[in-house]
């Protein structure tokens, strides 16, 4: 009987340690899944994506908001800010699709980004955040 109690106590402590460890990892150590490993929820052209948002922003936000999208388009412009983030503009500067490659990803993909020039076809993957005057895509990467 005593042995069973010890076993039970040991089991409870073990479960507590595992649960505590998991909670600590989940809250403090867990990293965001890198965009390279994210499977796209949608594959769409930049023109179509903007058109969908322009037609009904609320419905489009419901469908695409927070989702990973793979977008094919022609590059309108490429700009790097003082923090090292790179912005790729697709379709139109004001009413198109704007993709932000953060500084860490921009360092990792320097050669791919340097190879991009205005007017050339480009495929990007990122998270759709919604629409302001343009559709905003963050956590972007260039897909080769």
């Amino acid at each position, binding site marked *: 009987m005593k042995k069973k109690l010890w076993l039970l106590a040991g089991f409870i402590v073990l479960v507590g340690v595992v649960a505590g460890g998991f909670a600590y990892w989940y809250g403090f150590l867990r990293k965001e899944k890198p965009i390279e490993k994210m499977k796209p929820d949608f594959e769409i052209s930049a023109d179509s994506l903007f058109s969908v948002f322009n037609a009904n922003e609320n419905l489009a936000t419901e469908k695409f908001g927070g989702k990973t999208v793979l977008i094919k388009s022609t590059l309108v412009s490429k*700009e790097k800010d*003082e923090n090292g983030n790179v912005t790729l503009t697709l379709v139109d500067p004001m009413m198109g699709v704007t993709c*932000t490659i953060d500084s860490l990803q921009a360092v990792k993909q320097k050669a791919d980004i340097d190879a991009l020039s205005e007017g050339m076809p480009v495929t990007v993957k990122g998270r759709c955040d919604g629409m302001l005057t343009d559709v905003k895509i963050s956590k972007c990467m260039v897909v080769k």
Partner: protein
Amino acid sequence: MNKKVVWLVVGLMVSMSVSAQNRYFTKTGHIDFFSHTSVEDIKAVNDQVTSFLDVSTGDIIFSVLNRSFQFAKPLMQEHFNENYIESEKFPKSSFEGKIAELKSIDFTKPGKYRVKVAGKLTLHGITKEIEAPGDLTVGKDKILGESVFSVIPEDYGIKIPSVVRQNIAETVKISVQMNYVVFTPKK
């Protein structure tokens, strides 16, 4: 509020074709917020802010997507979007206001000017009047706008559960940095 901001932006864009040199814009503006407590510091950054500045009237508009705020820890970002700002219900935050004492700023003369901006800040679906100090650094065909001010999340109906009350400051510091360029209307 979102429709109103969209119409204001559209109005500004239409009027831009009349005198473009008076209008400046950015769609890669920077806003971050910082919460400091003895338990932890929380910072989130948004580098995708759209803003318009009309130097002839002093009108200034910011619009941000709440989902575009990036946190150091995924859990913080999840809590922010799901429990606090409720990004699904309130996807955008915005500010519409005016620069006070516009006449004291010479937008043809490069330099740094101290300004006051007053207007309506909308967060979490609640709009409040705010006033904030700022700096405008005028350059050739560009203006850098900077401001730091504080916001009390509970004023905007953002409820902080008691279990994390000690982790989140009652007053959050907001820093704004906009690199405006002259708006060139599409031909």
